């Protein structure tokens, strides 16, 4: 007769449509930051450490509103909303997921660029095979070098070609 359950000993699974806590798949994430830009409550941040050469994608599930906009914009499907909803914890750190990615080095000056190695790989995956090798040389340039060495038009070309993937901002 009773409609309640002896929770937590018995539990009811959430349906497949359910939008639960988001999870970042560290293997798939390329650190492009599209999710961060789409996220309404700023639950995802992208932080670059230019000295050590790391990019951290930080997801704070306690800020998340489960809108799944990140899932929609993620180019690699690294970010998915799970069916998990039992998130109570005494430590807020438990709700933070961090993906640490190595930044690409500028082939010219050797400084770190504002994009990750995986972003570069992803970009190369996308471009047609015939230009891949050519692109590899030009893609890993930091902003300053690109502007200085390749000149205005080349920089424009680069932005036009890769801007969407590299996620550079003004």
């Amino acid at each position, binding site marked *: 007769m009773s*409609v309640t359950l002896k929770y937590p000993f018995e539990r009811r699974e*959430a*349906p497949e*449509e*359910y*939008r639960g806590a988001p999870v970042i798949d560290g293997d798939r994430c390329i650190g492009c930051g599209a999710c961060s830009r*789409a996220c*309404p*409550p*700023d639950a995802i*941040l992208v*932080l670059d450490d230019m000295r050590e050469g790391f990019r951290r994608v*930080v997801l*704070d599930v*306690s*800020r998340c*509103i*489960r*809108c*799944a*906009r990140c899932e*929609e914009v993620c180019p690699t499907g690294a970010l998915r*909303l799970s069916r998990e909803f039992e998130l109570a914890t005494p430590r*807020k750190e438990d709700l*933070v997921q961090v993906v640490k990615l190595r930044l690409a080095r500028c082939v010219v000056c050797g400084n770190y660029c504002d994009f990750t190695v995986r972003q570069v790989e992803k970009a190369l995956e996308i471009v047609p095979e015939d230009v891949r090798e050519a692109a590899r040389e030009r893609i890993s340039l930091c902003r300053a070098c690109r502007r200085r060495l390749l000149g205005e038009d080349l920089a424009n070309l680069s932005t036009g070609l890769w801007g969407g993937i590299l996620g550079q901002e003004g």
Partner: protein
Amino acid sequence: MGAVKSKAGEVLEEVIRRLRYSVPVKGVKALGEGRAVVVVDRRFLRDAVLAFFKAFDGREPQLSSMVGIDESGRLGGDVYSITYWLSLNDGGSSDVLLGIRAYVRGDDPTFPSVADVIYGSNWYEREVRDLLGLKPVGHPDPRRLILPDDWPEGVYPLRKDFPYYESPSTEPKYEFKVVRDANVVPFGPYHVALDEPAHFRLYVRGEEIVEVDYRGFYSHRGIEKIAESRLTYNQVPFIAERICGICGFTHSTAYCQAVEAAAGIEVPERAEFIRTILLEIERIHSHLLWVGVACHLLGFDLGFMHVWRVREHVMWLAERLTGNRKTYGMNLIGGVRRDLLKYRVEAILKTVERVRREFKELVDMLTNTRSFVRRCEGVGVLTNALARKWCVVGPVARASGRKIDVRADHPYAAYGRLSFKVPVRSEGDVLARALVRIEEVFESLNIIEEALDTIPGGEIMADVRDLPEYSEGVGCTEAPRGENVHYVMTGPGNRVYRWRARASTYNNLPAARDMLVGYEVADAPLIVASIDPCYSCTERVIIVDVRRGSAKVLSRGEFERLSIRKSRRCA
């Protein structure tokens, strides 16, 4: 459909003509079928508003919203505008929403108040005073309304020169009413019968309430300011739906409709039907929730638990349709994000059938529980005259004999293509409000069935590009608690320049005083609950903690600082 629209246009023309008789009109800005803004001189603002109410007394004139805007971005200089949004509500034949606007300069920021005649404008005018520093002259109760007690005088947060992350504070101060020979019973901010913070100050003799004072807006966090400063237009729906934990979808719909109206976006029909279905699901769950709460307040937990048991099916349905127990995350500008798949349609029909059957049994049980009915009957009466003066909306208005319902009067989404009944009662007491809601549940179940039968195929999302700058739009929806009005003025950079979300409770809550006086402390929780108040709706909540010293929902760790810095960088 077309015929209706042209009818609305005719009525609008008539309205403007009648206004011209009474006051000099400086200009008219058409916003679409049945929508326009009339600009008058500040001196004639009051006369124009009163003329509207007087001329159309028989067509349920309504103060739907009032928006104050810092126009410095659009017009340059220290200029503000005040727009009273007035509507006629007579069952769809005059689908008119008219803005009466006056411009006010910063060196003399005053305008004539209408609150002594149209009680409903009481809060609107105080809000404009608080947030923009425009002073209503002749206001009967010019105390602070929205800003916290410790906010300094002369700082107006909604002016464009005020940064959204500032939170100045000073010594707290507030003047409450003083009533002789009466004891004070503080009802709230934290009271089991209030789901959210609000402070009613009941002045009682014995248990009889002789006077009531209200201090609210504890959950006002400047959501509009944040939307204007930090968010892009497609992020706003997610905040708009979090205005309310119960009727969120109706807020995001109203916001989207406002933007769609401003940008002239045609929403696919299928998306409109989906919105309609979800709105009705939301209404059912909200009304069931309310009936349960009313039972609980009267100590009748049997009714409470059973009603909520039925409500649970609705929640599960919402979970399958939207991915969330609440109908969250479905709306974007231009349409909806998830389609109604075949199996979902079956789930809906099954749930509708079940809810109809089980709720009917429960209603029989409730209306046969004498102790329950007796507590509701003749309590918290709001007369029709007062209901009209306070411009109350939704079931509160319909229980006091006002036949107003946005779905019928200003058809939106797919409502114009569906048939339904608007239940009205004339008693004006808590029982009438309960019965109106109960009837509406059954009506909503019918609407869902009809919508599923007639839903067309096709796309669910329109192609949306950049928004035009400084274009205005108003979106109205009938939330479970009544008319929601969202006003949007777009700005540069795909942001909103001004967004004014007016929830239904904002119109209903000020009337609580007239419902409470003369009854007893024992009735107070029920009477307040009977308007189904939603304080965060009224006060527009957001996640960022602006007020000094308030409860820290979020810790102020590194993350917050970083995220704020990030947002500023974006801005």
